[in-house]
Each structure stands twice: as structure tokens, then as C-alpha cells.
């Protein structure tokens, strides 16, 4: 335990505060910036105060704006006044004065004061702990809700995914089926086969002995036995057979263009 713990007093000091002798003046400065105004005053403090600048503390409080200038109340305090033990624990000493009918509070920084920040902070610790307790409770409740929500939502999302995948697969199958159906819209194997049969019937009124036939949406292939009249079939539109048989047997293909 630190030895200076006994010096931490969290209750207000009961001793009476001695009156401070603050000399006040009214200044008109061409700036609104407090930092700039303080710099101007610091440079001219010798002329503004009858006391040596090193022995004084000052504070500036803006009173009003007047024709492009700012009217400040300047408070000057003798540095020695803060050596009173009453101010030993006050890092900032305030003094209220009436300047031009206005109540002005000057704040003087007490550089010689003991560091009482811990005591000042600790004063708020119980209240802060209550606030933090409330925040933590709210956050924990939120976390609980969020965990429950996630546990419920993830299976739902997985189900939605499965459903979407199923629908996509179904749509893909549907598109494929429709594509296949539409590809036979203009001509399928039946129409091509009937068309070629009509052409062959016209070219060979006596008929044709076919050993095999194959038809698809693009072509019809006929295979004839011996005695087949390939020349008549070629005349009817079939592609000339390659490597024909002298007896007339062979296969001929009626390409797409024949029955376009």
C-alpha cells in the first residue's frame, strides 16, 4: 500500500477558502482566438500589470464582440497568493469577479499544487462502475440474443441455400429440356424421314429395297442391297456414295439441305 494513500481525501475540504486579490482589467484585442489573445497579453504583461510578470498569473475571459475587436476581462493574480495551504491540492484555482457588470470566473493554474488527479477521478469511480455494470449487462444481453439469433438463422440460411440450389438445378434442367424441344421445332427426324421417303418415292416409283435406314434431325441415311439404284438416289438429292459397289449396293446420305 502506498504511503501517500492517507493523503487522498475524497471529501471536500471543510476549511474556509481565503479571499484572493485579483486585479481585473478590460482589454480590447483584435483576435477572437483565446490562445492568440493570451500570447498577446503574455508579451505585454509588464505594461498591463504593476507587478513583475514572473510573479503573476493571469487569465483572460472573453466578454463580447465589439466592432471587429473582442473585449476580454483580464484577471491578474499574485503567484504568491496560491502558496496558501488551502490551495495545495487544487491544480486550478477559480475566482469570480464582476467586470463591467458581468460575473466573470477566472481560472488560475496552480503549478505548485499536489497531483490530486487520482483523488478527483476516484470520486467518480462508484458511479462509473454502475454505468459500466449497466453497459456490460446490456452488452451481455445483446450477445445472448445475437448468439440465439445466429443459431436460429444459420440453419435457415442453409435451408434457403439448399432450396435455391434445387431451384437452380430445376431451372437448368428446364432450360435444357426446352432447348432440346425447341431444337426440333423446325425439323425433327420424322419430318426429315418422311420428306426423304417422298423424294425417293418420286425418283423411284417402283420402290426401293432398303436394308437399313437411319434418320436424325440433320440427315437421313439409307442403305440399299444389291440392285439398289444409287444413281437415282443421287439424282433425288443424296450425297454420292464413297466407294460404291458395282452391284448398286451401298449407303447414301440425304443431308440437311435436301429437305431444308
Amino acid at each position, binding site marked *: 500500500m502506498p504511503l501517500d494513500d*492517507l493523503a*487522498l481525501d*475524497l471529501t471536500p475540504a471543510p476549511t474556509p477558502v481565503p479571499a484572493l486579490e485579483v486585479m481585473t482589467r478590460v482589454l480590447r484585442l483584435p483576435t477572437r482566438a483565446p490562445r492568440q489573445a493570451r500570447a498577446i497579453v503574455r508579451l505585454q504583461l509588464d505594461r498591463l500589470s504593476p507587478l513583475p510578470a514572473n510573479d503573476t498569473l493571469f487569465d483572460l475571459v472573453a466578454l463580447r464582440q465589439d466592432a471587429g475587436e473582442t473585449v476580454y476581462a483580464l484577471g491578474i493574480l499574485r503567484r504568491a497568493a496560491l502558496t496558501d495551504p488551502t490551495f495545495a491540492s487544487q491544480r486550478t484555482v477559480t475566482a469570480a469577479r464582476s467586470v463591467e457588470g458581468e460575473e466573470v470566473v477566472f481560472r488560475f493554474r496552480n503549478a505548485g499544487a499536489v497531483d490530486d488527479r487520482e483523488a478527483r477521478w*476516484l470520486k467518480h*469511480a*462508484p458511479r*462509473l*462502475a454502475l*454505468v*459500466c*455494470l449497466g*453497459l*456490460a449487462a*446490456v*452488452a*451481455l444481453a*445483446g*450477445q445472448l440474443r*445475437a*448468439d440465439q*439469433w*445466429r443459431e436460429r*438463422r*444459420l440453419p435457415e*440460411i*442453409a435451408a*434457403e*441455400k439448399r432450396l*435455391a440450389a434445387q*431451384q*437452380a438445378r*430445376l*431451372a*437448368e*434442367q*428446364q*432450360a*435444357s*429440356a*426446352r*432447348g*432440346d*424441344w*425447341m431444337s*426440333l421445332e423446325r425439323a*425433327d*427426324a*420424322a*419430318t426429315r*424421314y*418422311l420428306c426423304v*421417303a417422298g423424294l425417293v418415292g418420286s425418283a423411284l416409283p417402283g420402290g426401293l429395297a*432398303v*436394308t*437399313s*435406314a*437411319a*434418320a*436424325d*434431325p440433320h440427315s437421313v441415311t439409307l442403305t440399299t442391297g444389291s440392285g439398289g439404284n444409287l444413281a437415282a438416289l443421287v439424282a433425288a438429292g443424296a450425297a454420292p456414295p464413297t466407294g460404291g459397289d458395282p452391284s448398286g449396293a451401298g449407303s447414301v446420305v440425304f443431308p440437311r439441305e435436301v429437305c431444308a
Partner: protein
Amino acid sequence: MNRQVWMHRAAALASVVLVGVALTAVTSIGGDLIAVDRARADTPASAASASAPAALRWQPLKPAVRRNGASAKVAVGEYLNGRLGELGLNIISVETPTVRPLGDGLHLAEVRVEARGDAATSAAAANWVAVNREAVRLKSLAVGVGPDGSGTCTLVLLMVIA
């Protein structure tokens, strides 16, 4: 006084711990949100992107066969047995390798039919397909002589069924 100071210090320490607890809880909430967001982001594209090409003009179809609870293979087999049998084709086997959805409760069945028949009966079958082409289309046809010397006919049909 000393005890009061220590109590205040304990309160300050508790504040720090509680802030840590609150931050951890908030981080966990963020983790939950991110996990759900990621799970949702992995959802595949909607089915609309896989629809039929817009260039194809789709017209409503009339089914050739209604299944009425039976399997596609049975319904199609019974139907073809009747229809193609009238044309002189003696059906040996009927297979339906695929049945795909067409929408509006209709399906497209690919049917492979093997039957006994010659060129004339296969031409009659082609003619029947041409007449009923709103519901049946012929993908391929093959007529030949089987091992026993009789004519065999193989048809691959696309049939609209309900």
C-alpha cells in the same frame, strides 16, 4: 478514509473489467453478424439466371400422356404400346432415360423404343409423330434387320407428359 479509497479503487478496477466484458460481448455480437452475413453471401445465384434463352420463343404445350400417379416409364409404355401397336409396330422395350421439367406441371421425357417392324411401319410411326408433333417429336430413327432376320426399329422420342 483509507478503506473508502480502496473501495473507490476497487470500483474503478471493476469498471475496467466491466468495460472489458462489454467490449468482448460487443465483439461477439459483431462476430455473429459477420458469420450470418458470410453465410448469406455464399447463397448461389437465383434460379432466374438459369432460365431458357430469351431468343427461343416458348409456346404452351399439350401433354401426350398424363401419368395420373403412375411412373413416367409405365405411363409412356402403355401409351406407346397402344398407339404404335395400331401402326403395326410390335414393341420390345421402352426406356425413359431422362424426364426433365418443362414448367407449368409438364415434363419432357426422352423415350427410347425398340420394336419389331419394317421400313413401312417405321414410316407410319414417323407419320404419326409428325401428326402429333405438338406433343411428340422424333429425335432419331433407325430401321434395320435384327439378328433373327426380322426388321427392328429403334425410335428415340421426346414426349411431353403431365
